[in-house]
């Protein structure tokens, strides 16, 4: 993959990320988030992680963003101001803290790992078969625990979102 392709993808990723946090309306934020997830999925394909690219599109772009949009549509009618009050000092503080954080991280990344060898590329190019092999052998227990977690999350979501009934 050429560097130009990567640069274009990176620009799109940064632009969509900024769109998420700068949009006034939460619906626009969710749509920018959709674009961001799709760009990241493309990057996964380029980094020899086909399976994860597909999972990213299905789970993040398909399920999570749609869930966000559902909730926004559901509560949007009752909330009048989706646009928020300007608190300039808080925003300035956030930007300053973010800049300091970014400088620290760029320093760490630039200092520690400048001498990476040529990337080896994931075995089997991250195909379903290649990822399934460690997933179902070495990491079988975390995989099963993830299913328990999904069940617990499902029940928790239902219990929390259910309308409270009058207890007699």
């Amino acid at each position, binding site marked *: 993959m050429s560097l130009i392709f990567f640069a274009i993808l990176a620009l799109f990723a940064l632009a969509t990320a900024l769109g998420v946090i700068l949009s006034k309306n939460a619906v626009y934020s969710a749509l920018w988030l959709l674009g961001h997830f799709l760009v990241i999925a493309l990057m996964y394909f380029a980094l020899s992680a086909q399976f994860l690219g597909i999972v990213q599109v299905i789970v993040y772009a398909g399920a999570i963003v749609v869930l966000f949009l559902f909730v926004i549509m559901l*509560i949007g009618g009752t909330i009048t101001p989706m646009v928020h009050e300007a608190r300039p000092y808080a925003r300035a503080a956030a930007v300053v803290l973010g800049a300091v954080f970014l400088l620290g991280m760029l320093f760490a990344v630039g200092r520690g790992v400048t001498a990476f060898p040529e990337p080896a590329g994931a075995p089997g190019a991250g195909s379903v078969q290649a990822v399934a092999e460690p997933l179902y052998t070495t990491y079988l227990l975390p995989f099963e625990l993830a299913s328990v977690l999904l069940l617990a999350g499902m029940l928790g979501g239902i219990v929390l979102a259910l309308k409270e009934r009058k207890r007699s």
Partner: protein
Amino acid sequence: MIPTTYILLLSAIIFTIGAVGVLARRNALIIFMSIEMMLNSVNLTLVALANQWGNLTGQVFVFIVIAVAAVEVAVGLAIIMAIVRHKDTTNIDEVHLLKG
């Protein structure tokens, strides 16, 4: 092949954008989206390093993280729904029952 360092830099920047979003925005939904973005940037580093070292453990890790993120979104959005039902707002500054 893209040098791994560039990808690490990109995900550092995306992570920071998400962190600034969490700090600067007051809408609970947008804060939540920023958190998802931060999770995603860390996933990107894991995939990049799996690609760097020719080892699939990182990709398995990302798979588990995606499952956890899905659960987190389901529960978190249910909590936001409950808050909206009680306080009729998504502005986190107005949710201050525990403030001393």
